């Protein structure tokens, strides 16, 4: 299997992001609530620090293994496509939340989602889906072509 430095880095980022945020969401939604309690400040900081530490160690390992870190026109094109897809996910999530805010105000519809807890977790989930879409789009185009 011919994996480039970029693909290796993407797989590491995908695994780290899904692993850490998946663990967080599994814990947060364990009680099957639509709007779990907000995490403590230290928990959020700890999650971010863990993400940075894991990414740094694994990306450094990838750099040692592959050595070549040239980014060429194909890499830039694939990155542009993936960021565009991520943009649509984030836009969709934000618009969905905006509409829910109005609906909950007017018709008391899904009012649990528009509490601070619900908004925090929904936006975090939207970000996670966007990041995952970013990584998967790039991996798809590196394998299938562009």
């Amino acid at each position, binding site marked *: 299997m011919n994996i480039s*430095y970029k693909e290796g880095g993407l797989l590491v980022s995908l695994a780290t992001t899904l692993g850490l945020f998946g663990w967080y969401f599994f814990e947060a939604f364990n009680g099957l609530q639509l709007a779990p309690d907000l995490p403590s400040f230290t928990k959020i900081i700890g999650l971010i620090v863990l993400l940075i530490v894991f990414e740094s160690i694994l990306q450094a390992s990838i750099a040692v293994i592959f050595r070549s870190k040239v980014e060429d026109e194909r890499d830039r094109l694939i990155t542009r496509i993936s960021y565009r897809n991520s943009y649509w996910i984030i836009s969709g999530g934000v618009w969905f939340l905006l509409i829910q805010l109005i609906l909950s105000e007017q018709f008391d519809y899904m009012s649990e989602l528009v509490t601070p807890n619900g908004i925090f977790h929904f936006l975090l989930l939207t970000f996670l889906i966007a990041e995952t879409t970013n990584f998967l789009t790039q991996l798809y185009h590196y394998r299938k072509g562009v």
Partner: protein
Amino acid sequence: MSQQKLADEIGVTRQTIIAIEKGKYSPSLEVAFKIADIFSVSVETIFEYK
């Protein structure tokens, strides 16, 4: 000429050369002309439009 050497001469990665050879990537004009220049042939000899 090896794929790596060709990639180094053009300024792209070896994976990009592999993708071009497999038809999974259409390079820019700049890269296409550089490839043709290295092999001293015209662009039409190496690339065809499908």
